[in-house]
């Protein structure tokens, strides 16, 4: 039985504006699921509908087999960590963590014991008698997590909990959350717009765009087999090259102002005359010798230095082609480069619907 079933869920804040256009997701027990998407796509709304903070306009959500549409947040067995921590400013760390237990009438002795236990897990024991204002950002974040953990909920919900931390702390907290999940094994739903965060944390990714689910799958699958042009563009940095064009009579892909790419691996789908979007990741585009088979020539627009490698932005017959180059050869803007596309790593998307066109091998 799934820990959380989301079935045909829609959300409208007002009668005209549909914000979530029907989402179906099954989340298994103990899974760490990350909802990833650009800001404003409805991630928080979906999460808040699971939490019970937002009404479900259509469809149903079940937690542990029980439909929760009409249940209060406290009856759903979820705990939530908020972006701005949302700690009670007048309470000490101890009181903050213990508040949910106090509300549900847990006796003081047991409450204190449980608070100390979770405080130990997140290394907050020395700070139990401080107030939130006397803690650093990372410590507040940990209080928020301890507060979620103390009730032993069935589900953890996180709404961009790390976005207020500086980059270094964010990476550290990410590892901490990952470890906590490994130790506790509680089903978790984590919302973020940061793909690195999503890729490192998720067992399963849910990619959302404009109120719709674009793809559900493990991070590697989403990366290697993006289900749509949107996902291809959104996941990966630098972003995937996406060339619009058409297959000619020889099965070559014509793009830009007439540039041609040899795309033998697309056997089976490269129908002459088919208009499509060809995708290839920058790390699969290599610099090569001028006469290498399949090489195309272009002009360097500019170079992004990454330290370990450089990102070449080149103009190839009117199309932008981005390549990652680790060779260390220096290139100036305006220079000629020869690029070739590694075989076996091309993606094809429908020009109209943006959906992936599956390749038959």
């Amino acid at each position, binding site marked *: 039985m799934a820990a959380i079933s989301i079935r045909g869920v829609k959300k409208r804040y007002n009668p005209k504006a549909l914000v979530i256009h029907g989402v179906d997701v099954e989340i298994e027990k103990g899974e760490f699921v990350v909802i990833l998407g650009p800001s404003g796509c409805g991630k928080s709304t979906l999460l808040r509908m699971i*939490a*019970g*903070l937002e009404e479900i306009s259509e469809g149903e959500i079940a937690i542990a087999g029980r439909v929760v549409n009409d249940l*209060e*947040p*406290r009856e759903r067995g*979820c*705990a*939530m960590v*908020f*972006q*701005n921590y*949302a*700690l*009670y*400013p*007048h309470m000490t760390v101890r009181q903050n963590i213990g*508040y*949910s237990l106090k*509300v*549900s009438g847990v006796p003081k002795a047991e409450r204190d014991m449980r608070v100390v236990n979770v405080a130990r897990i997140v290394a907050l024991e020395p700070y139990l008698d401080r107030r939130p204002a006397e803690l650093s950002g990372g410590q507040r974040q940990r209080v928020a997590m301890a*507060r979620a953990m103390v009730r032993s909920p069935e589900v953890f919900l996180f709404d961009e909990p790390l976005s207020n931390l500086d980059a270094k702390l964010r990476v550290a907290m990410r590892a901490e959350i990952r470890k906590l999940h490994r130790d506790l094994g509680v089903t978790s739903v984590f919302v973020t717009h940061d793909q690195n965060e999503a890729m490192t944390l998720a067992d399963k990714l849910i990619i959302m765009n404009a109120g719709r689910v674009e793809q559900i799958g493990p991070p590697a699958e989403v990366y290697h087999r993006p289900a749509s042009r949107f996902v291809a563009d959104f996941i990966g940095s630098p972003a995937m090259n996406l060339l619009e064009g058409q297959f000619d009579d020889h099965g070559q892909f014509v793009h830009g102002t007439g540039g041609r790419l040899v795309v033998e691996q697309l056997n089976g789908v490269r129908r002459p005359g088919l208009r499509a979007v060809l995708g290839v990741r920058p790390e699969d585009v290599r610099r090569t010798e001028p006469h290498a088979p399949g090489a195309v020539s272009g002009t360097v627009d500019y170079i992004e230095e990454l330290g370990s490698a450089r990102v070449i932005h080149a103009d190839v017959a009117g199309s932008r082609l981005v390549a990652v180059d680790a060779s260390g050869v220096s290139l100036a803007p305006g220079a000629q480069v020869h690029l070739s596309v590694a075989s076996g790593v091309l993606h094809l998307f429908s020009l109209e619907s943006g959906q992936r066109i599956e390749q038959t091998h």
Partner: protein
Amino acid sequence: MIERSPLFNAITYLAMLIGLVLVLLPFWVVFIGATLSLPEVARVPLQMWPSDQLFQNISAAWIRADLGPKMINSLVVAVGVTVGKIVIAALSAFSIVFFNYRARMVFFWLIFITLMLPLEVRIVPTYAIAANALSPVQALLDVTGLTGLVQQLGGVQIALNWNLLNSYEGMILPLIATATGTFLYRQFFMTIPDELVEAAKMDGSRPMQFFVDVLVPLSRTNMLALATIMFVSTWNQYLWPLLVTTDREHFGTVVMQLKALVPAQNGTPDWNVTMAGALIIMLPPLLVVAVMQRWFVRGLITKDK
């Protein structure tokens, strides 16, 4: 930025000094007057330094105006009204800010309008209600014909009556609605982040628990500021207590007793006793302000959270 020059500074200080003198001079006169003997107070011009009769005058005033029991009355009314106002203001602001119901804006504007209807304006209807607090219910029964129906069926004449005149309830209840207080609370509640409310919901807190456990402690400074203003203004109430109490013996307040302290038309002009009485009467609000001023200023100005 304001230009700062020696001349400007001097002008600022002068203006403040004049203001201070204007405010403090009457108090000084009262204090001096309270220390003088009868011949001294009758002398013209009034002397401007204290004499040695303060305690004699105070005890004379205390006895003449029966200030002991009246102090208690004043205290009961002022504390009752202050507490009532804070509770009502906090609860109504809680309802307006945190609950989403259809009539919310209606209530908001109703409260807003009462800002323009202070007690003095609505004193006659308020008195009518105080004379029989159940008269609106009675009117409702009469209009709907229920009274007649019950009389026909049961042979009983419904005549509801709850008289608030000459009682502490009568002096307190009609004063406890406060639009100002509601607005002060509303402003504060609107600064509470939504996330905090949601965190409490996730923690399982019910609305009244959230109110008591989170909102009340967070609004402590606002509450003390409001309490200060309300205590002082209620202590100084004159018109309403005068109106609802005919039994001055038992329910008179100290401010009403000021009249008893003023020398009679052709009695002894012992203004020194009057001044001593005034001094006693203004002491409690002065003490409250002195004790509360730290929170008072903070509650009205900053939003410390």
